[in-house]
């Protein structure tokens, strides 16, 4: 153990601990800007500087390791003055249109400026020359608000291992962007949006579709259907002050109704439908010698990664559309026919914890009714924004219930939002399909938890199923390498693009670096889903009464010709860089 004093308070910590961590141990928060736990610790922004007795200059607490006998001072006038100047210099080249900024009141730079009583216009100097990047359907980069903290670069390079952005040039001319300063849409970005989640300012945000949704709601000709994904109910509450991990499904339904949506259905329902098709496809592949292992296809960021980086593995991906796309497809075919509505009049809005879903809706071969399956995608954050804009007092409204028939779901559908959830849901159905029996155990605990890669082997009716679950692209890459080199003996592999799964998707409420430092957010958000599963009336997708009805009256069997036409799709190999 290393013994030191921070602000004259003795503290003992393990060797290798940083001053920042040691200070936290005795209840002292040192302010940070570029630092983020597990993502970025580079000592670049100089906001976390502290005085160390005997040291030549101030040191960056986020990277400076403690030494025996060290004496640290975190709040001397010299330290405070240095931090204040640093923040004022950052502000001198910052687009200070804070009043209308997407991140107003939850911006880490704004918080620091306030905390240090900064004069935002103290230094009026040159400004970066930069244009907004609007090239993709899912993300906007506005470098006029970038503070060069490099968190986005770190998450893209280290956590997702795609590294499509980096620092370009040097000194004052430094900007964050793609190779050869190409637009993001011309790079092999997987659209995960993790960069948005780690950005301390408003330099990155999703491509909003609120205006399109409002226009559809205002159009009396349109029947506007809302479909929230599992993880939305596990994250939305955070925007309204609920503790992390609170399931706000009921209030969310009421809020959607108050916003003017005509029908509130549930993407959980089509998560169940995905399981019906995917479990069937898996069994078919095993029986008939199809490409194995089979990969899940629910996560559009993952699918995009595969298309760019491992196109040779495309035959291994399930041909099932994602729950979002199945949702739109069923609304505009089965539901439209059942209700006698012209599908051109239906406007389907999915609400997603995800930015890649905004890309997914633009994919080819996703228009079962002849019209796009999905018309607009809102992130959890955009939904929260609309609720606030409409003056809906989320905390005070009563809980509502989903509309029938497409609002009925099982516990298997709801756990889709957590890493391992799709696998567990599929195993519940596959096991009963293979054995032809009703099994008591529905919980597959080895595939639960927030670990990056999980493996398990299950015996199902004499069939040995070796499965793997990976979340985060760095982990997906490891699994892909194994499969590509022929070293995988797995039958079924679930991959989710974002670490921890959709609950931690790029469209979920932003957590500051302080929250990330102190909270096990992946597990907490997932726990809301597992609790919902536990108390669900039905816990297996094939027990969903509406799913049964859908097959009986419309689709026939899982994997039928009709099911294929409506619920399955194709993939394309993508060139990483456009010449």
């Amino acid at each position, binding site marked *: 153990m290393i013994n030191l004093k921070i602000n004259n308070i003795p503290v003992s910590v393990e060797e290798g601990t940083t001053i920042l961590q040691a200070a936290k141990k005795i209840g002292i928060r040192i302010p940070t800007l570029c630092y983020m736990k597990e993502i970025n610790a580079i000592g670049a922004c100089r906001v976390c500087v502290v005085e160390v007795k005997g040291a030549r200059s101030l040191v960056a607490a986020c990277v400076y390791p403690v030494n025996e006998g060290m004496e640290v001072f975190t709040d001397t006038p010299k330290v405070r003055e240095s931090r204040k100047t640093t923040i004022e210099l950052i502000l001198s080249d910052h687009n200070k249109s804070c009043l209308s900024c997407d991140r107003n009141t939850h911006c880490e730079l704004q918080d620091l400026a306030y905390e240090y009583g900064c004069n935002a216009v103290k230094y009026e100097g040159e400004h970066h020359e930069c244009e907004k990047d609007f090239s993709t359907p899912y993300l906007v980069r506005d470098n006029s608000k970038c503070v060069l903290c490099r968190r986005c670069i770190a998450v893209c*390079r280290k956590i997702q291992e*795609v*590294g*499509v*952005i*980096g*620092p*370009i*040039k*040097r000194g004052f001319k430094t900007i964050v*962007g*793609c*190779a*050869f300063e190409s637009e993001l849409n011309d*790079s092999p970005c997987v659209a995960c949006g993790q960069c948005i989640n780690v950005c301390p300012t408003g330099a990155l945000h999703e491509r909003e579709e609120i205006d399109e949704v409002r226009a559809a709601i205002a159009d009396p000709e349109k029947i506007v259907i809302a479909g929230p994904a599992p993880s939305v109910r596990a994250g939305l509450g955070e925007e309204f002050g609920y503790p992390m991990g609170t399931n706000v499904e009921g209030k969310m339904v009421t809020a959607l109704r108050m916003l003017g949506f005509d029908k509130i259905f549930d993407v959980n329902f089509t998560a169940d439908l995905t399981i019906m098709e995917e479990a069937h496809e898996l069994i078919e592949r095993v029986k008939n010698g199809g490409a194995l292992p089979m990969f899940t296809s629910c996560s559009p960021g993952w699918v995009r990664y595969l298309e760019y980086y491992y196109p040779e593995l495309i035959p291994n991906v399930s041909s099932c559309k994602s729950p979002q796309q199945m949702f739109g497809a069923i609304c505009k075919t089965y539901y439209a026919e059942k209700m006698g509505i012209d599908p051109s009049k239906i406007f389907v809005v999915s609400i997603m914890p995800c930015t890649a879903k905004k890309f997914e809706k633009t994919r080819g071969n996703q228009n079962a009714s002849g019209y796009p399956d999905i018309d607009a995608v809102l992130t959890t954050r955009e939904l929260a924004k609309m609720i606030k804009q409409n003056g809906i007092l989320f905390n005070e409204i009563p809980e509502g219930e989903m509309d029938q028939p497409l609002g009925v779901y099982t516990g298997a559908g709801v756990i889709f939002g957590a890493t391992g959830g799709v696998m567990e849901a599929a195993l519940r159905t596959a096991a009963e399909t293979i054995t032809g029996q009703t099994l008591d155990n529905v919980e597959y605990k080895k595939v639960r938890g927030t670990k990056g890669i999980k493996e398990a082997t299950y015996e199902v009716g004499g069939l040995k199923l070796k499965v793997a679950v990976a979340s985060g692209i760095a982990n997906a890459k490891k699994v892909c390498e194994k499969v590509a080199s022929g070293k995988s003996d797995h039958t079924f592999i679930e991959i989710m693009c974002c670490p921890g799964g959709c609950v931690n998707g790029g469209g979920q409420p932003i957590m500051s670096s302080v929250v990330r430092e102190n909270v096990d957010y992946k597990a907490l958000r997932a726990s809301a889903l597992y609790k919902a599963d536990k108390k669900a009336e039905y816990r297996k997708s094939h027990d969903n009464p509406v799913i049964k009805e859908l097959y009986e009256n419309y689709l026939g069997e899982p994997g039928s010709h009709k099911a294929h036409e409506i619920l399955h799709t194709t993939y394309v190999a993508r060139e*990483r*860089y456009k*010449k």
Partner: protein
Amino acid sequence: MANQTKVPFTGTKAQEEKLLKVLKGLKNVEGALMPALQQAQDIYGYLPIEVQEIIADKLDLSLAEVYGVATFYSQFTLTPKGKYKIGVCLGTACYVKGSGEVFEELQKQLGIESGITSDLLYSLDATRCIGCCGLAPVMTINDDVYGKLTKDQIAGILAKYKE
């Protein structure tokens, strides 16, 4: 004034083979990117996207990472150099002695802001101090050094480099 001339990539098979050999030797070497870029620039004379893509691919790095390093260090160039590489020192001593005017005159005469002329004969760069401040303002054309320059000498000097 014309913008930077876009020069089509004219790398040869022999150059590529040479580069691949270099990269093979650097595989799994820590910090391989700098020597890779240096040697690639020796082979091609500059670092176009085609070359950076090969480096990224073979060293298992993202293109953005390669590009970031290539644009960080002034020793690397992303545009090819002309047959005559003109460098004008804009370091402190040269600058106060009027090298800015010399640079502007060159820009005017060559019709480019920087980079390479469309006939690929000249390339123009602003450089830092080249270590002969006594001769300020200074410019170099390949290995020839011209000192104590005034802007009306430029046309005459360029006339010597026409072939």
